[in-house]
């Protein structure tokens, strides 16, 4: 009851937020432009994939962190009411993550609907793109909750949020390249699969590339990836890893919220 009430009002707040509207509009314009002028079809999805993998986690973690620091005083007022902390946390998280996920789905999905580009062979990759973007939103807003609860100082918290995004999108890949070049004489396909599973953005990237039938471009590695991620074990392991990436920070943030001083 408390969670639903807080969720509804936070949803109303973010629905009117210029930042969320701007985010949705930017994605909408970009998707429309790529569909019209970027060759359409698989090419547009491939281009959008790069945007989704970079921008969606960035918006999720930075907007989420800023919003939560800005709401700290209001959270105090809510906690001064006869409401449980656990329920309040659930309402706050849902009220933050779901409007951002809805903004993403509308921004990327609507142009495909009115341009009719999401049918036939493109339906699978588009569904994967929308699913991955939604899941990344949930993961990175959960990380934003954790950062804003663990770090009291707003500037330090925002810095940590950007650092986490940088590690997940760029630095981690640099580490993988370093490993791959250093141990290029060894069969690295399986260790690389392990490393990819440890980063939600890489996991989403590989899953989308395989959906777009571009695995052949990666040669033998692509074949190994396709065999692993296409197998039942691979699918379950990938899904489990993404769920862990979502649930892990969320459970940690929930525990922190229930014990934190406000």
């Amino acid at each position, binding site marked *: 009851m408390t969670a639903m*009430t807080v969720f509804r009002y936070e949803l109303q707040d*973010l629905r009117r*937020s210029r930042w969320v509207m701007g985010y949705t509009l930017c994605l909408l314009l970009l998707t429309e432009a790529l569909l019209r002028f970027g060759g359409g079809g698989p090419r547009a999805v491939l281009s959008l994939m790069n945007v989704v993998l970079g921008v969606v986690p960035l918006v999720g973690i930075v907007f989420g962190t800023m919003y939560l620091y800005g709401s700290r005083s209001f959270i105090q007022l809510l906690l001064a009411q*006869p409401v449980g902390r656990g329920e309040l946390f659930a309402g706050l998280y849902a009220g933050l993550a779901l409007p951002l996920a809805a903004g993403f789905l509308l921004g990327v999905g609507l142009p495909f609907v009115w341009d009719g580009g999401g049918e036939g062979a493109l339906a699978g990759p588009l569904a994967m793109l929308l699913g991955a973007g939604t899941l990344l939103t949930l993961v990175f807003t959960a990380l934003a909750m954790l950062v804003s609860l663990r770090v009291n100082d707003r500037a330090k918290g925002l810095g940590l949020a950007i650092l986490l995004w940088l590690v997940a999108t760029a630095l981690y890949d640099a580490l993988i390249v370093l490993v791959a070049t250093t141990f290029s004489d060894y069969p690295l396909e399986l260790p690389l699969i392990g490393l990819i599973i440890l980063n939600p953005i890489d996991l989403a990237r590989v899953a989308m590339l395989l959906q777009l039938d571009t695995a052949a471009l990666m040669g033998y590695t692509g074949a190994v990836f396709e065999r692993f991620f296409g197998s039942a074990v691979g699918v379950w392991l990938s899904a489990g890893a993404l769920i862990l990436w979502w649930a892990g920070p969320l459970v940690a943030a929930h525990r922190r919220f229930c014990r934190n001083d406000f």
Partner: protein
Amino acid sequence: MIPLPCTVIEGIGVTKRYGGVPVLRGIDFAVKAGRVTAILGPNGAGKSTLIRVLLGLARLDEGSVTVSGTVVGDDPAYRAAIGYMPQHPHFPENLTGREVVRLLRELRGHTVPEDDELFVAFALAAELDKPVRVLSGGTKQKLNAALAFMFRPGILLLDEPTAGLDPVASGVLKAHILSARAAGATVLLVSHVLSELEDLVDDVIFLLEGRVEFLGSLRRLEEITGESRLEPAVARLMQRKAS
């Protein structure tokens, strides 16, 4: 014989540290029912922390606090009897004042008639349909005060209640605090403007470096310090401690 007012809030050995630094150092205190008690002290004395401890916003390191017979802990139900006015109100900027009122009403599941006297006295009706982000600081503070009194709570915790209010609004709020007391409410307030408290306060808790330096009635404070005004009386307490 006049019966002694009973204690509605009690703290025993209340200790709170932030990052290992003690802010409240094992203090004992009691707040009597139906009276206005001021928590006074210089910056960093632990006044706002004490309010947060009473609300369960800050967890105790040692000691215990009882509010209306309920030990402050994980059960939030006791807060139904409390109206809280934070020092710096920050409401969601895209909600209207009316939506903030509705949110709190829904969270409390309130069914009894509400106290809308401050909404009327502050002429908030015209402001309630505007987004919070366009409201002035003073209007937000008026809304903040009206929300604290709205559910006719038995206990009012007011953190710097007159900060940001113009003299007229400040007078309205002070009159409302007194009428709440007359109706039986217990009021605990923190303020730096000591001159404003003199005609409001019955009891004083004076905190210094996380310890209770004085706890008692305004008359007792006058007797101890020989000062009839609150400001010099507090100054005398601080001088006594320093010497």
